[in-house]
């Protein structure tokens, strides 16, 4: 069965190569089809819709500016509904029916683990712009991502706190019933070790807990000079507020769950001084980032988030690879993507590592006056 399926695929591929296509002066076809499978409905659609906006904006600009000469990119976005099966079928559809040259997505790592092997087998380059789980690019040499994994940006504020406050003794509290917080707390532990900071105590809590005073009091007893919190946004607010209530007056470093404007808004002055790491900062003064935020605001009348910025960056990376390859061929694009290095993007100077993971500077943010600001 699998033999006939892949046999059919090769026949179709061969047939598609025989069809003469209009070729532009640069050796590129007049229209280059690029696919995207993103979560556009359901709970996680907030991410997918941001990503779609970022991609649309970037390819509109790329086509208008003529970055690829006279050839235009046609973006085909299909909803994968945050579902693994749906992800596989959409991936097949993009590859075999739409015959795209390259693919963006999926939105969630779980869907990527199901769908990306399809593209790897077919030899179609895929770029995730929001997948942060460990092992995404291990699925094969056609799999790329421009979203920094946890381990790349979460530890940055630890070093910043050490430099700023001379931290020697840290304590950690995390949710032991959440996989994300658990793996993040391991990243924090490794970062503390690497920074030469003693982790003198660790406490945990369970999903649904709301009273953290006892754990915080227990941690406070060890007289640490840094509190590290790995929590989801829901528990982040009471954790910050109760730490303030019990007089736990030490610098706080938070995980990705605490990098949320809503947390800072609700926790109010309990969030003051909180430090978090991030892949991108919306109010960055870098020219590329400012231009992106302005263009996004003009087109959508809203402010972009990190997901839109990463998708926008991904689109430019893809266009640059196609330009360098002088071809819309899938393998040629893959090879050109792998060679990208030192590209100026919204996320800063960008390169792909040997493992096709992103390499670009992360930022450390600190809450000041109820706003995230760049840590100087």
């Amino acid at each position: 069965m699998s033999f006939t399926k892949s046999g059919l695929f090769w026949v179709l591929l061969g047939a598609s190569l025989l069809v003469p296509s209009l070729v532009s002066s640069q050796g590129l076809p007049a229209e280059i089809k690029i696919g995207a499978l993103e979560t556009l409905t359901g709970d996680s659609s907030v991410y997918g819709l941001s990503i779609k906006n970022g991609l649309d904006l970037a390819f509109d600009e790329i086509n208008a500016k003529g970055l690829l000469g006279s050839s235009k990119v046609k973006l085909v976005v299909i909803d994968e509904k945050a579902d693994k099966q749906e992800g596989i079928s959409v991936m097949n559809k993009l590859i075999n029916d739409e015959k795209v040259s390259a693919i963006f997505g999926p939105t969630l790592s779980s869907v990527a683990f199901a769908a990306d092997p399809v593209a790897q087998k077919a030899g179609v380059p895929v770029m995730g712009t929001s997948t942060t789980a460990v092992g995404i690019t291990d699925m094969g040499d056609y799999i790329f991502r421009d979203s920094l994994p946890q381990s790349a940006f979460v530890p940055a504020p630890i070093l910043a706190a050490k430099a700023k406050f001379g931290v020697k003794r840290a304590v950690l509290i995390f949710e032991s019933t959440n996989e994300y917080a658990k793996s993040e707390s391991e990243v924090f532990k490794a970062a503390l070790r690497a920074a030469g900071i003693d982790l003198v105590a660790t406490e945990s809590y369970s999903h649904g807990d709301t009273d953290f005073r006892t754990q915080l009091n227990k941690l406070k007893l060890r007289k640490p000079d840094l509190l590290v919190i790995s929590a989801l946004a829901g528990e982040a607010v009471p954790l910050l507020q109760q730490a303030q209530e019990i007089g736990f007056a030490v610098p706080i470093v938070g995980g990705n769950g605490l990098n949320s404007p809503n947390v800072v808004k609700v926790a109010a002055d309990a969030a003051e001084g909180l430090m978090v790491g991030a892949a991108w900062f919306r109010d960055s003064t870098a020219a590329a980032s400012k231009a992106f935020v302005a263009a996004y605001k003009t087109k959508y009348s809203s402010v972009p988030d990190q997901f839109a910025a990463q998708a926008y960056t991904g689109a430019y990376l893809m266009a640059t690879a196609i330009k360098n390859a002088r071809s819309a061929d899938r393998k040629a694009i893959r090879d050109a993507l792998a060679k990208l290095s030192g590209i100026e993007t919204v996320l800063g100077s960008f390169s792909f590592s040997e493992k096709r993971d992103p390499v670009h500077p992360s930022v450390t943010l600190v809450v000041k006056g109820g706003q995230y600001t760049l840590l100087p």
Partner: protein
Amino acid sequence: MDLTLLLDPTYLGQNLVDGLSRGAVYSVFALGFTLIFGILDIVNLAHAATYMWCAFAGWLVLTSLGLPLPLALLASMAAGALVAVGLEFLAFRPLRREGSDRLAPMISSIGASLILVSVAEAVFGSQTRRFPSSVLDPHPLLIGGPEGLRVTWAQVLIVSISLVLMASLGWFIRRTRTGMALRAVAASQKASRLLGINVNSIILTAFSVAGALAGAAGILVGLLTNNIFPGMGGQVELRGLAVVILGGMGSIEGAVVGGIVLGVIETFTIAYLPGGADFKDAVAFLLLFLILLVRPQGLFGQKSSVRA
């Protein structure tokens, strides 16, 4: 962990304060549970959902209407009474016939609970709501200097309001005519009817009092933890049930003492056992089991033949 640190008297005192305030909430919640159980012999599993709705009612009054806290407390209790009375009419009364078993109303209360939680999710979303920080002075009372005991205003309020509610409930049950009628109905609905007591209206009273207690617990927990969301009932439901069993089914003193015992045990498990937070429930329920081995009727329970 260094033992001398843990034996620190301030730390011990702080954990007592925190355990008491945690337990006081369990007590108020369990009072409503035990009241309905004592009178109707049924477990109202929609009590936790009522409590959640009350927390939202209090939140709405505080944020949208901007009314002060005492009014929000009253509004929340009124909302609780209303929801509980609604439950009695829709979920319990239709099933109450002479000789009907106790399983049907329990199942119907589970259904009611699911509906209440789903409606809350539809209306409020699953996002967590918080009370505005202006409701209570966020600065705690310091007893014994800045390194001493810290008691938040929320904790002071919770313990004192709980005490007032428990005392008034005790007085109401023992000293008022309605309270006596309640106890009569609890003893025998048939005999009460023969004595000319309007059983249905007494049951309605019991539901509204239980609902009002759920309402008080809801807003108090909101103040203590600042975390209001449709699933919040799940955290207290099992504990409330445990408190009722620990204290003795239908016993008011039992609910009060049981709640405080559970709150203090939980807090001390987290505070004094390494990694205690991960098995605080296990320790609490193990102790519960041991107590019941020694006293199957609970701390204040009587043999079922002489209850109430």
